[in-house]
């Protein structure tokens, strides 16, 4: 994996073409190449990279002099996590009830409405939604600020933009797994026993139905992280998404490498966490 990341980052170009002013003469290019270690053969650079990376050192950012890549990522991470967290919260709060509703009231108008909402969510480009939301709520109505990081009012529009796509995905998952569970023996038994309908739904079904969506949690997280790239650009939210886009444009390899590896790492960890959670929550395993 590291080879892929390293290789891709390097072939994307020479950071000096971004950094150096037009005035730079050939000597300046040579001087800086030497200073940054870019004149060494690629293989050597790769091993230096790996050696350092294993110690947690991803090198110094080429664009932001004096700051190490890890430092930058660590500095910007909270912003993205904040946003992703809020986005996840919003999408779950909206998707869960609607998913349940759609499953319970299957094939009725509510189900249709939910399907339509889900469809809409998965059919709009994120950046378009972001810009439209910004114009409607920040410029025309003036209710919220347009961009930047600040209090919760700054987080709402970007969080909705990221979360919108996930609402559809989560809703579908909840709906389909609820449908499965609603038909199961266990639930029929509970109904026969005379337990109130809403209790059946909430207490018994949801707990079991919640398992399947959980397994897709990792993918949802992945979606949130990638969604953040576009959204942070539109809303000027100084998180990792914006950092990595700037880094790619500036050919800032250390930062790009650091971010890609961290994203991948987070994704893998989420998968692991979900596996563990799954083992914990699956009643078949629990009631053994």
């Amino acid at each position, binding site marked *: *994996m590291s080879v*892929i990341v390293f290789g*891709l*980052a390097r*072939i*994307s*170009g020479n950071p000096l073409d971004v950094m150096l002013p037009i005035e730079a003469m050939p000597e300046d290019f040579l001087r800086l190449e030497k200073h940054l270690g870019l004149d060494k053969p690629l293989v050597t650079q790769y091993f230096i990279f790996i050696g350092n990376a294993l110690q947690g050192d991803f090198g110094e950012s080429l664009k932001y002099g004096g700051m190490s890549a890890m430092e930058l990522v660590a500095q910007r991470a909270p912003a993205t996590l904040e946003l992703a967290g809020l986005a996840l919260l919003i999408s779950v709060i909206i998707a869960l009830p609607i998913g349940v509703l759609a499953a319970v009231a*299957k*094939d009725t108008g509510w189900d249709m409405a939910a*399907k339509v909402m889900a*469809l*809409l969510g*998965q*059919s*709009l*480009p*994120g*950046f*378009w939604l972001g*810009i*439209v939301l910004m*114009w409607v709520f920040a*410029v025309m109505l003036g209710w919220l600020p347009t961009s930047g990081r600040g209090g919760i009012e700054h987080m709402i529009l970007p969080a909705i933009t990221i979360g919108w796509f996930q609402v559809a995905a989560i809703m579908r*998952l909840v709906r*389909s*797994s609820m449908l*499965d569970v609603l*038909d199961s023996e266990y639930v029929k038994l509970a109904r026969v026993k005379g337990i109130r309908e809403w209790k059946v739904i909430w207490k018994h079904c949801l707990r079991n139905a919640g398992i*399947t969506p959980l397994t*897709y949690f990792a*993918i949802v997280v*992945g979606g949130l*992280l*990638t969604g953040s*790239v*576009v959204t942070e*650009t539109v809303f000027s939210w100084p998180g990792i998404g914006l950092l*990595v*886009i700037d880094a*790619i*444009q500036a*050919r800032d390899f250390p930062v*790009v490498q650091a*971010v*890609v590896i961290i*994203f*991948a790492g987070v*994704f*893998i960890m989420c*998968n692991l966490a979900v596996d563990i959670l799954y083992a914990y929550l699956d009643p078949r395993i629990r009631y053994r």
Partner: protein
Amino acid sequence: MADITTQTLIPETSSRSATVWRVIKRYPVFSLTVLVLFLVIPAVFAPLVAPYDPFAGSLGARLVPPFWQEGGSMEHILGTDKLGRDMLSRVIYGARVSITVSLIAIVIGGTIGTLLGVISGYFGGRTDSVVMRLVDISLSLPTILLALVLSAALGPSFTTVLIVISVLLWARYARLVRGETLAIKERDFVARARVAGASHLRIMLVYILPNTFNSLVVLATLQVGYVILLESTLSFLGAGLPRAEPAWGLMVADGRELIVSAWWVSMFPGFAILVTVMSLNLLGDWLRDHYDPKLKNL
């Protein structure tokens, strides 16, 4: 299961409306109509249907509003873009571009994924582990970032976009087909074939692959919409198709600054994306419900 419930609820009056209703419920009429209108006809018949050449601009006629607004005219029904190119023609040709990109990417990604999936599921063991590891890695790489880096390295072009999207798609197919293969290879007719001395290749090609077909079609349909959206996001970030191409995503990205003043530059292609992707998703859902409920969670 869903069909049984609804069918018993519909009163069995032998009237034509009941039959019609049944037909409508059986086939995804709505989404198919929309798709045909918005995607298939424009894509196939673009040169006949579009009033202008999508690449020909006239700097004197820039940003002409659609005909119902002040300043618009019937000459350019949906207005013109920044370079005076007719919006209607570009949206029509855009269907062609979107379909081409999606189809090719899905064919490439799907073929690679399917082949790897079948091999992995059939042979199991080390091959399986290796392929699944690749799948995991592929799914865990941040997709957009990879696209951007590749684009920075290779320059934005049709090929780059195709490579990027195929790389992103193949893993899903591999996983799906592997799962199916695992199930199918335990079936009787496969065992019989093996006993009869059929080669591995023959078994895979003749017995296993055709049975995965249904699932593949469902997945592919669901992914066309995803690919179109992905293309538009890549264009927004500057890693998409070459500029002059009338691609919907590129048009939306290009017109995003003018969203308030010259809204038609972004809105019409955006609307085309919305409608197309929605119907594709509806179609995909229907296909899945009717042919392969196992895929509910995709």
